[in-house]
């Protein structure tokens, strides 16, 4: 049986049940029941129309459950409301399901879990393993999320920006188990991009593809972080880069710029350079200027300062950095890098050590510690 096909049908079937009047949580439960039934029945007796089969079985389960719970009158109302069976276009329904799972009333953690479960079709256990929390915790997170959105109607237009933020959160989790969340985020964003012409959806998809293309080069076989400038560019996935660039160009051509498109443009300029030295830093700075205008984010300003350091020299980068709050994440790392390029190894070594102690993850901390050690060894050799 084709698991990927089965999983891709889940959001559509849930969405159809919701549109027919089922509450989200009940719809989700009914679809899970139908999936179990499918796993039992399909190997011996595959249906001609898998989606139609799932809708029919899930709807029957839902009615059974409603019947068991609700009063006779309520049940009859539901049955009464049931539309005639038949083929249904589900693109809009699935889009609504994305909105529901990323509803602004949910915390980011809940929205992520619900999206992976209802839209991605992952099991609670798979999601729990990916996030390294107990399965019971993840089950609670999901059921709380369901309760939170219990009264939300599927008809209201949703906030696409929230959906994109949730998908980007999933993407940035990388992978830490059987489920590769980056791949899952790309799959879901690709699906979303097929349902809407929004430029920022395309921008996010392009950004994910361009980042993902570099994944094999980003860490060495022994798990060390490899900075962009030192990456073996022959390891970059040219097929993903080409796709990312195509998606981005089509979006940019529509002339409605947003932050994901601008970030993707920067990633594309990095991907475009055959060697680190050939990177078009001047254009990258221009894109950072756009990003600052779009987001006014201090983190973006920090990245811009590093790009200025590449385009106009380390002094210019340090001047841009001096205008920012030293408490920003990675401020010390950026300052260390620019001071080293400026020839001040003593300051750079001190700042790398400071940055290492503030790092939020192990590969980054180890990388920064190594940088400090490298400079200190150079300084000792000199004296």
């Amino acid at each position, binding site marked *: 049986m084709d698991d990927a096909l089965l999983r891709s049908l889940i959001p559509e079937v849930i969405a159809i049940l919701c549109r027919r009047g089922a509450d989200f949580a009940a719809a989700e439960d009914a679809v899970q029941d139908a999936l179990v039934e499918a796993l039992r029945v399909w190997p011996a007796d595959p249906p001609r129309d898998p989606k139609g089969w799932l809708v029919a079985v899930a709807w029957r389960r839902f009615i059974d459950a409603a019947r068991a719970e609700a009063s006779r009158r309520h049940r009859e109302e539901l049955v009464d409301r049931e539309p005639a069976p038949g083929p249904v276009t589900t693109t809009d329904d699935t889009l609504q399901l994305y909105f529901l799972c990323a509803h602004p009333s949910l915390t*980011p953690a809940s929205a992520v879990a619900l999206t992976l479960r209802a839209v991605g079709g992952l099991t609670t256990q798979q999601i729990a393993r990916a996030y390294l929390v107990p399965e019971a915790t993840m089950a*609670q997170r999901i059921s709380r999320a369901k309760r939170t959105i219990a009264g939300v109607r599927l008809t209201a237009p949703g906030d696409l920006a929230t959906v994109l933020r949730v998908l980007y959160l999933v993407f940035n989790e990388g992978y830490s188990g059987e489920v590769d969340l980056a791949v899952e985020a790309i799959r879901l964003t690709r699906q979303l991009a097929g349902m809407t012409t929004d430029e920022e959806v395309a921008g996010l998809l392009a950004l994910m593809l361009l980042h993902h293309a570099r994944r094999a080069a*980003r*860490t060495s076989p022994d798990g060390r972080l490899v900075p962009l400038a030192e990456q073996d560019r022959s390891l970059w996935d040219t097929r993903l880069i080409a796709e990312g660039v195509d998606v981005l160009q089509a979006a940019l051509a529509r002339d409605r710029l947003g932050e994901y498109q601008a970030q993707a443009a920067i990633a594309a300029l990095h991907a475009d350079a055959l060697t680190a030295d050939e990177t078009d830093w001047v254009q990258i700075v221009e894109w950072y200027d756009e990003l600052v205008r779009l987001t006014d984010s201090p983190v973006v300003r920090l990245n811009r300062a590093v790009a200025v350091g590449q385009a106009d020299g380390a002094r210019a980068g340090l001047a841009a950095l001096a205008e920012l709050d030293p408490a920003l994440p990675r401020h010390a790392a950026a300052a260390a890098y620019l001071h080293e390029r400026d020839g001040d190894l003593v300051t750079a070594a001190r700042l790398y050590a400071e940055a290492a102690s503030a790092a939020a*993850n192990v*590969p980054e901390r180890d990388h920064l510690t190594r940088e400090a050690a490298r400079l200190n060894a150079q300084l000792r050799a000199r004296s």
Partner: protein
Amino acid sequence: MAKYLLLKHYRGAPEAVNDVPIEQWTPEEFEAHMQYMRDFMKRLEGSGEFVDADALAPKGEWVRYDGPGRPPVTDGPFAETKDLIAGWMIIDVDSHERAVELAGELSAAPGAGGRPIHEWLELRPFLADEAPAVTE
């Protein structure tokens, strides 16, 4: 979605406000304290923020390599000379603010006289093993 370790220290931290040693509490006060902790964990399970928790025995010792062919050196147990960890809890929350809020609630567990202990808890963020995808 960031994990934090909440550390309860037997000693080493600044004094709690309601600083009566646990063995001098009444059994009811002790039970109320334990129930508060159980309720707290139960609530975090319900909110999808609980990861793990456990208690540690007060005896502990330092161990050190002492050269090839020799048994490791231990310095103890001389428990009274050192800080000790009484127990820990791991939470998985949306923000640092939320972690501080929860640590504050745990610190309010009742002690002597049924009043909150106001003990100091150490709050330590986890380092992730995976580098974030977008650091470049």
